[in-house]
């Protein structure tokens, strides 16, 4: 394999593996948010804000993987 092929494979694997954990985390956040929304629909506003905040933290991990993958691919 030439270095470019290895680069492409590694970049793909980086984001593929790095996306697993954030996906699981986001699904748990969303599940819990929906559940609490069902219990207490009046708190929709604060649930939404806090959910987006929590999602941003989980998503940050995926973004780190994405940045590394882009760096491998393009730098």
């Amino acid at each position, binding site marked *: 394999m030439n270095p470019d092929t290895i680069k492409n494979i590694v970049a793909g694997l980086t984001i593929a593996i790095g996306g697993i954990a954030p996906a699981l985390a986001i699904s748990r956040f969303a599940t819990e948010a929906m559940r609490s929304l069902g*219990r*207490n629909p*009046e*708190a929709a*506003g*604060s649930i939404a*804000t806090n959910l*987006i*905040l929590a999602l*941003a*933290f989980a*998503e*940050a991990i995926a*973004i*780190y993987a*994405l*940045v590394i993958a*882009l*760096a491998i691919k*393009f*730098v």
Partner: protein
Amino acid sequence: MSVLRKPGFWLAAAVLAALAFNFFHPFDIQAPHITLAAEEVLRIGGLRVTNTLLASWLAMAVLIVVALLSTRNMQAVPHGLQNLVEAVLEALAKICEPTLGSRTPLVFPTIATLFLFIVVCNWMEILPGFASIVVTKAAEHGQALERVPLLRSAATDLNTTVALALSAVLMSQVYGTLVAGFPRYLTRFVNIRRFVAFFDGLRGRGPKESVSTLALGLLDLFVGLMELFDEFTKILSFSFRLFGNVFAGEVLLSVMVFLFPFVASLPFLGLELFVGAVQAFVFAVLATAFIAQATTTHHHAPAQVRQPVCPTPATPLTERS
């Protein structure tokens, strides 16, 4: 024959034809030119002006012009542009209010500036002219002529997002110092109150403290260190989150335009509008949360003590998955 009279049929046929045209068009479309680093488009004195810097200047100009136009002839009952700007700012203030409480008037300008700048930068990305207007750079050292896009979305440059993250984190320190006062804000990072109490007790200058106070003092020092470390992590995550999302969006758009040049790539423009607004919102909400955290010291109760929306049930909810 009746199906030919229906406008829906012809609309669907036109869309399908446009989609099919993606595969049978006669044009030669070049593969997208994707670079991670921003490229220099012109040089003013010693300052290298990159395409992302130019785009961020454009965003600033848009914001300044809108601000001047909307405040030129202010009325108590707003209409037109003033109404629009007020609606946006009020919606934003409503989001900040529950977290910041009484500190909203102090902090809100920073939050609103960050939000508006990022959202304008992100939305300008899909304007025609971005990445399509190309300047040709003079060849240097025998290299081939380089074609560089004149404008490129500002947040696709890590320099822009690091600058935004640095200003957000620095402003949270400034607000923490303003609200709590310098010495007390410093105890967030260097908390030696328990240490001082313990050694005062040893030297007979105060009440004798147990050894657990010393252990807790050490723990306080460690917690302060973690807080300090956390500030640097914030800069990293702030900047990488914005950069990663916007750059990935740009790559997505250029790859989609390359693969499906006609019609089929349009929905992704809508997706980018959504992602740009959400990222600006996330940046603003996170900055709000961090500033609220910095301006709430441990010594007095947080300002966001609110009545629970719904009274807690007498019997605990036991069903849990």
